[in-house]
């Protein structure tokens, strides 16, 4: 009798535990599914605003489920572009689909998804020269979080039972929607406080260390991958004649070009850019914008950059103002001249540094080429 009562009590306690687990875990899953900060299942409900502060998660879900008519594609150098600026100027309704060092195949996968679900008016495509060297892989989302992009519903447990999503992303989304300091356009900063200056740039670029021995590359280095990626982009342009493709060249800091030069990649990069323009410019629905890509006042001013490649607010705000601006448009007639200008700039500019044999100290001001 006593043993039977004991078992009944133990049974009850086990049931309490199971009920608690169902309530807590079920509640957490329900919360994530309803708020869905990465738009994995649906667009924002309950009047919440879509926040785009985590590119790794948001690319695919946002492209699939948000409402928009234009898409901004690119790597980390375009992440900080404020899409509101673009939309105010160009009358579009844009979302971003970006990735760290985003490869051309990844951006193509975003485009595929976007065209499946939406009629696109414009595609703003930040053409990163390095992205064209990526191999076409079976997995269209290399480096992305697997469970967010595949079709397996079981691995979604990693999303709806995820501490970062519940305690970080959902509060962020709720607080942004509640307090109305909506910053969807400022999706991402390389460093939290948007700090710029030589000290930050030179943290990630050391001319002494970056001049190690590198493989020799001629101008045709990687040309198979480049041509394959360009063909893929061209296919989108051809298949969607009603969509305007606005390509632009993000302005990397001069140090980025130095590194490319030190790695013997400069010649190949310039040739690739030439090929990209040669292949894409002839299309009616393509526009190409140089932005500040070869503007010495911008790209040699280390005070405007957050690291070796990424511009701060000034650079990205200017970029947002220059995309779609006829003043910055390049054509079949002008593109070679623009590339020559960049080359001349690289040859003329010298980053002055003092070295102690091991490390170096940046010693401004910057010399501008005459």
């Amino acid at each position, binding site marked *: 009798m006593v043993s039977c009562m004991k078992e009944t009590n133990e049974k009850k306690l086990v049931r309490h535990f*199971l009920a608690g687990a169902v309530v807590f875990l079920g509640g*957490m899953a329900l919360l994530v599914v309803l708020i869905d900060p990465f738009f994995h299942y649906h667009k924002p409900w309950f009047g919440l605003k879509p926040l785009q502060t985590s590119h790794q998660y948001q690319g695919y879900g946002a492209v699939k489920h948000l409402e928009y008519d234009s898409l901004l594609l690119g790597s980390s150098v375009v992440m900080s572009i404020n899409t509101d600026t673009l939309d105010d100027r160009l009358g579009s309704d844009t979302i971003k689909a970006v990735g760290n060092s985003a490869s051309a195949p990844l951006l193509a996968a975003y485009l595929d998804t976007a065209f499946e679900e939406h009629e696109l008016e414009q595609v703003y495509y930040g053409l990163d020269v390095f992205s064209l060297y990526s191999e076409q892989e079976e997995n269209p989302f290399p480096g992305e979080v697997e469970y967010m992009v595949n079709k397996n519903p079981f691995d979604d447990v990693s999303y709806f039972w995820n*501490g970062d999503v*519940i305690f970080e992303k959902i509060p962020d989304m709720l607080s942004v929607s509640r307090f109305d300091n909506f910053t969807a356009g400022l999706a991402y900063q390389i460093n939290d406080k948007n700090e710029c200056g030589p000290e930050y740039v030179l943290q990630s670029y050391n001319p002494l260390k970056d001049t190690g021995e590198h493989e020799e590359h001629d101008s045709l280095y990687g040309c198979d991958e480049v041509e394959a990626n360009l063909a893929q982009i061209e296919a989108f342009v051809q298949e969607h004649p009603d969509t305007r493709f606005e390509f632009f060249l993000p302005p990397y800091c001069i140090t980025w070009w130095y590194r490319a030069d030190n790695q013997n990649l400069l010649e190949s990069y310039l040739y690739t850019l030439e090929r990209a323009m040669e292949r894409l410019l002839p299309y009616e629905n393509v526009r190409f914008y140089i932005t500040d890509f070869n503007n010495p006042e911008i790209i040699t001013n280390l005070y405007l950059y957050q690291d070796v490649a990424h511009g701060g607010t000034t650079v990205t705000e200017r970029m947002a103002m220059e995309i779609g601006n006829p003043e910055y448009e390049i054509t079949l007639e002008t593109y070679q001249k623009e590339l020559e200008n960049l080359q001349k700039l690289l040859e003329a500019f010298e980053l002055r540094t003092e070295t102690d044999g091991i490390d170096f100290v940046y010693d401004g001001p910057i010399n501008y080429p005459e």
Partner: protein
Amino acid sequence: MLFNSYIFIFLFLPLALLLWHGANHFGKYKLAQVFLIGMSLWFYGYFHPAYLLIILASVFGNYLISALMERFSAHKILGVCGIVFNLGLLFYFKYYDFFVENVNQAFHLNWAVKNIALPLGISFFTFQQIAFMADRMQGKAEHYELADYMLFVTYFPQLVAGPIVSHRDLIPQFHEKERRHFDYGNTLTGIRLFVIGLGKKLLVADELGKVADLGFGAIDSLDSVSALLTMIAYTFQIFFDFSGYSDMALGLGYLMNLELPRNFQSPYKSHSVKEFWRRWHMTLNAFFTQYVYIPLGGGRAGKAKKIRNTMIVFLLSGIWHGANWTFVLWGVVHGIAVSLENLTAYEKIHTKIGTKLDWLFTFLFLNLAWVLFRSDSIAEAGQFYQKLFSFTNTGHIWMLPYSMDSFKNYPLYLVADHFGGYAAARILYLAWMLVMFVLAAFLCTRKSSYDWVKEKKATALEMWGLALVLSLCVISFSGMSTFLYFNF
């Protein structure tokens, strides 16, 4: 497969329990055992399928030798062969590269290093089988049925990080009929132990582990204060990590009505290093006592021999933990400490200094010794001690909590940042870290989880609390970490 993974909690464990209890319910005891072996092999092979070949070779090798012992009378020779076989396997996978590197260095040779990946838990399942082989040799163990022996070695709760189970403790339980019936009392105990262990690992050890990792990852930046906190963080991390795993293993055992031996009994409450070793990794110490210390003569043949035997045991214990001189030295310093405590002169001092000071000295010693255990090399440990005793304070303490920037304190951070900006957030981070230290210290000085579960009757509120702990642990899985003792 990790205990702290979605697949284990939501697929593997329910399936294992269903198959085990389901087959037992219908009286299919052998089938239940086969299911459990199959599940255990899946559990082990999930880490790396190739590991299965190693564990199966080990199990069948030992079983074959045991069968030969049954057939032939040359027990001693066969037993020695069995032990050599086990030690050989362990040496090859765990110590070969270390041995070659040291030989190369000592004799200026250039033997090739094989970069052998260490199969998880090899030290644990090898030691269980060495004990079995030694007992077989002495006629203290019978030749078991293959299914019994396989389940004894591969039983998943204890497979990769112990406790080191004796065949005498586990195999007879397979044949106790009452253990084949579902038991709510044991299920309740199992749930309580498992969830407490999971919480110890994910909510305490992993948090403090981030502080330890940051400190040990950049020793150059440390000052005395941050070095001290780094050291204590690791002391707590290793306890909550390993004892958390042991609690989970025991809990899983109870869920299947199979009791595993306990491995911890509040070790940081010890008042001497000797006492610490009676409370820390108890099954490893039982192994060394039974199969090394006592056969060497134990403490019966005078003080000198007692010290010699103690040093041998601790040297082996150090080597067992890993192929690195840091572990060897860690074992040696513990051996020296225990030997000193065995001296009569020390006993007198020991009783004079009082209980609280005893505890403090012991805890300090353990902390300092863990530095050796955690460091990648003796030089690194030396550098750490240098920082620790430099008596400097550069303010590096403010950097340590940033390693703990996890979801657990994010909402608080949002509030602090909103009201007080960066300065308030900084203070909050530091406070959060110190709260974790205090919590860890508090938990360490309470009853061990095993004693607590055994002595305290569960309540409905506690079960809801444990369900919440489980849920918080589950949402930590997305950034899951392995257990420190997997590599030993």
